[in-house]
């Protein structure tokens, strides 16, 4: 069984910097991290491989070159092959174009099943998984919280999806795109000290539009069906700091404040 995982590197949103004078996001030195739900998907794939239920795990990433150290880390964690699709022409691509680019690669790389995270930390639209499935003409399921590993050997994937009201079980015919919800377990395996020195050459490839051959008007801003009109950064107001003493009056004030904000009832 060949598993391909869609793995996106997202900016570390907790440590985002914003230039308040120029009202712009500071993009230099922004730390990247593997999208948490994608990490769950890769971790599940690696677990299947460790349990001899999968033969190979291949990650596919559309993103900037700065993603490279993270992809190398995925290899050190046990992924067999990593592909970075990177081309300046892809800058500004929306989820529709992104799905087409990924599908163009996937349709030629060979897979038995595609794993993905359902949501990303930065965009969060949840579009890419279903769109890729649609383009490839295969089934898709999002928000998967559990997959029965046994079912894979029967050519299908039996998965569980939770909603607020109920827990549903579905079976999908393979090949399919399985979108996993973030879960703290399983975790990605640790990188071992010895693995840091391992030669990774030949296992990570970077491909560009020349290899995929998409027309210029199909990609980037030109090909996108949606536009980002404005980025609105939530928050930063100088907090209205008020100091209170640890006496009855201070406690009462804090209590009233918390009640007003709905933190206590």
């Amino acid at each position, binding site marked *: 069984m060949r598993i391909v995982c869609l793995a996106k590197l997202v900016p570390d949103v907790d440590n985002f910097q914003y*230039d308040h004078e120029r009202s712009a996001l500071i993009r230099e030195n922004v*730390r990247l991290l593997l999208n948490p739900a994608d990490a769950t998907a890769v971790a599940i794939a690696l677990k299947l491989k460790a349990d001899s239920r999968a033969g190979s795990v291949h990650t596919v990433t559309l993103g900037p070159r700065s993603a490279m150290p993270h992809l190398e880390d995925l290899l050190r964690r046990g992924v067999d092959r990593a592909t970075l699709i990177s081309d300046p022409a892809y800058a500004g691509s929306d989820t529709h174009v992104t799905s087409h680019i990924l599908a163009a690669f996937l349709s030629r790389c060979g897979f038995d099943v595609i794993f993905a995270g359902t949501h990303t930390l930065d965009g969060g639209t949840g579009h890419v998984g279903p769109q890729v499935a649609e383009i490839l003409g295969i089934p898709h399921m999002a928000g998967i919280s559990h997959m029965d590993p046994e079912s894979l050997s029967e050519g299908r994937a039996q998965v569980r999806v939770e909603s607020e009201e109920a827990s549903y079980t579905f079976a999908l015919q393979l090949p399919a795109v399985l979108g996993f919800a973030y879960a703290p377990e399983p*975790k990605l395996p640790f*990188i071992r000290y010895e693995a*840091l020195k391992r030669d990774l050459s030949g296992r990570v490839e970077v491909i560009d539009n020349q290899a995929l051959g998409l027309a210029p008007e199909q990609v980037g801003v030109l090909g996108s069906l949606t536009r980002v009109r404005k980025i609105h950064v939530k928050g930063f107001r100088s907090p209205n*700091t008020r100091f209170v003493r640890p006496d009855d009056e201070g406690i009462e004030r804090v209590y009233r404040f918390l009640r007003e904000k709905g933190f206590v009832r």
Partner: protein
Amino acid sequence: MDKDLLLKEVRALLGDAQVNTDPEALYDASADRYKKYAKARRVLDVPPPAAIVYPRSTEEVARLLSFCNEHGINVIPRAGKTSTEGGLENWKELTLVIDALHLDKILKIDEYNMQATVQAGVPLQKLEDALRERGYTTGHSPQSKPVAKFGGLVATRSIGQFSTLYGGIEDMVVGLECVFPNGQICRIKNVPRRSGGPDIRHIAIGNEGSLCYITEVTVKIYRYFPENNRFYGYLTKDLATGIQVLREVMVNGYRPSVARAYSEEDARQHFYHFHKGKCVLLFMAEGNRHIVDATCKGIEEAVAKFKDGILEQVSSELIENWFNHLNWSQQDIDDEFEGMKEKDSHDGFTTEVSADWETIPKLYDNVIRRIRSEFPRAHDLTLLGGHSSHSYINGTNMYFVYNYEINCAPEDEMRVYHHPIQRIIVEETLKLGGSMCHHHGIGKYRNEWTQQEHGSAYFMLKKLKEAFDPNGIMNFGAIFYQEEGAKFQK
């Protein structure tokens, strides 16, 4: 001698109640906060000591030391357990940890002569509380004040947050009592000053348990005027501006108790509510009213002189409030420890160096540049910055702070992350003639550079070890490089 016989002998020497062989306590005693993450994950690679012993008097310490000296048993002196550089880490199979638990008495507070005498196991907070009740202070306030004890504070040459006014522990210690491996008890008397040959207090101060066991300490005390405290805070355009202002204040002869300059990254973690992505400069003036008035004037003049680099002034209330919550209690330390059991992260690491005024900004830039470009795990860094927090007439310190997402196995964390970063900091510091260890001590992981740190004067240091600890029983690996310990370092 084997472990069983050692325990039998030690029990005969002290009695059962003063000998602890509880496995959990021994695991805890096998390492300090240097390997905090591996320790929390229970993957320590160092052996546990044979026992922790709790002497009740200087004489018991002397008996224990001469016994260990005779039988070649490694000794690790221990006080508050806040050691950060491996000072408490054990590298020997046969080790006794001598804990100052019962040496816990404040012996004298002498208000007329402005000095206080305590035993080595007295927590700094305990003396400080007793002094505050009477309107005095020790002036010593490391962030670990609630937990650290006098034996450790003196043995590490610790320094507090108000050092620019009161100095480091070496400026506070008047006299002390210590015990050498052969059982010799030495009392250094308490006089205001003398020229009786070299100042032998410095053989004990900073010895990190590698020469002698400190049992008693007398420190200076100071009148305390909290009502006069004044605070200043500024956002600055860069760290170099902050350091220039610090220098200006210092060279004009002012002694604010606190004088600090933070890089953007470090400011972000400390002053999230007002840093605005800029560097931060702050001061606290303390003491009697006239001195505070003069110090404030000095600070304001220095800030005015460098106004081009000052972006705005911050409410002094914010600075005061921040200071009041800076110390780490035992609860904070325990909380971090509990957190590390579950999460692949901790609260970060620090490496503290010092150099003259001219060198510090260069040193800072070189270190940051090298880490960003050479450290193979730079993409895992979640924090990299620093601050200057202890200034002198001729220079200042740089407290590098860093944290990272831990993506390796817990047992590999030090060699994958901390060591390569620390190595760059130490190398750059020594290259520019600075000191690689401003206040945490050398411990066991920087011992590889002790000789380079001291240069030709290493001769003097080595002779002290040979003279006072000829059998090498005192804190194996602390300060002095040991080939046998290298396996734990790499």
